[in-house]
């Protein structure tokens, strides 16, 4: 999965992800969520982008973490909002010429509109009514409360992303 961006360090006999030239590094992704991050970014098996993914890397901050590096891409605000839902501790590093020119933590918005589908099949937002889904957001732990039906999504948020 890491393709040509992985090199072997003969001295330590372990795999390392090479630094990227231009693009974005999403670090401190909650372990297990890297593939969902790729989904949010619309990156599938047919992508032509240069992407590297590391799973279950040791992190002093959050125990185990995943990392995603994408060459030649900077993220839209809406993409960052979506990532924050499934990886609330993630940091976004924008890279140019191998240098980190900007680094910031994702920040969960207090309110989400049109990003997540309510998990309650009987919610009015899951009908043909002219409304978009809306949620209020609790940050720790991440819980989304539908403003229409009060249904709370606390697990498997990635499955409900629109």
């Amino acid at each position, binding site marked *: 999965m890491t393709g040509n961006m992985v090199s072997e360090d003969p001295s330590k006999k372990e795999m390392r992800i090479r630094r990227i030239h231009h693009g974005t590094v999403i670090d401190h992704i909650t372990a297990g969520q890297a593939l969902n991050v790729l989904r949010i970014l619309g990156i599938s098996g047919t992508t032509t982008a240069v992407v590297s993914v590391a799973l279950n890397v040791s992190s002093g901050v959050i125990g185990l973490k995943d990392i995603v590096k994408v060459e030649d891409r900077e993220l839209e605000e809406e993409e960052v909002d979506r990532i924050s839902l499934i990886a609330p501790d993630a940091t976004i590093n924008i890279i140019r010429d191998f240098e980190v020119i900007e680094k910031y933590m994702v920040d969960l918005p207090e309110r989400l509109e049109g990003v997540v589908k309510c998990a309650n099949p*009987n919610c*009015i937002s899951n009908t043909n009514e002219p*409304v978009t889904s809306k949620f209020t957001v609790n940050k720790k732990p991440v819980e989304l409360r539908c403003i229409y*039906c*009060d249904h709370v999504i606390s697990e498997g948020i990635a499955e409900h992303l629109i």
Partner: protein
Amino acid sequence: MKTHKFKLQSHLLDVMQHHIISMRDFSRDDIDLILKKTKEFEPIARGKRSDLLSGKILATLFYEPSTRTRLSFETAMKRLGGEVVDMGGIELSSVAKGENLADTIRVVGNYADTIVLRHPREGAARMAAEFSKVPIINAGDGAGHHPTQTLLDLYTIMRESSLLDIKIALLGDLKYGRTVHSLAYALSLYHAEMTLVSPPQLKISDIFKKDLKKQGAVIREVSNIDDVIGDIDVLYVTRIQKERFPDPAEYQKVAGIYRITEELLKKARDNLIVMHPLPRVDEIDPAVDRTKYARYFEQSFYGVPIRMTLLSMAMEAV
């Protein structure tokens, strides 16, 4: 719309203008004020003439069957001198032609001063409020909220017992029953000591329990009513609602599991009151109706003065 004269404290209620959607929109101060005001409406609910809402029109949109809620809203409106229009059965209305709720609300809002809505979808009333230029009063949205029922339940407790330091048992379907969810939430604002009595498959959800505890609610859960009957001031009985069960076989397992009888009530405190939102099926033996404990018919009466208060608030008459 202007802020109504009924100076409610809740910031959210101001934001929501005059809509009455969920108990979560009310603070304890709001509720206390509504309950206090309701006492003034009791004589009118019993027949004293009033023209407080004369010239006003209430539209009732019931997408699901209802007897008590619809009739008590109509009674409240008419006893206050107002008029009621209703859309009849949904098979007779434009809903049958495929009109969505948002459009119906926008149309009816041009005719009436307030809309009372019952709808099978959770969140319908909140959505209706987004599209309505007149106040929406939620008369039940699926398995969601039913704030006017909760307010009349609280009023019954206040009138027939006390809302201070009460010990209450909520019995029956705590998973699907919307009245219980709203009531438990409101009771948590009063620091009531709640015992939840249900078969394991109809227990209150963990998420909701967590919510209640966040409010500071004291909750215990049991499955046998005998364990608590001697230790409570209020017994709130609910029907196990067949229509809310996704699987009929699951309903059969729990149907008729609880029955309140005179025999059971021998172990009760003298001051116990028994409540039920009605309709009942077989949860309360008819012989209990004659005992000093029964309050469910008073409770259904209190629906009228409570709805008088809410209608008057919505139409800025108080």
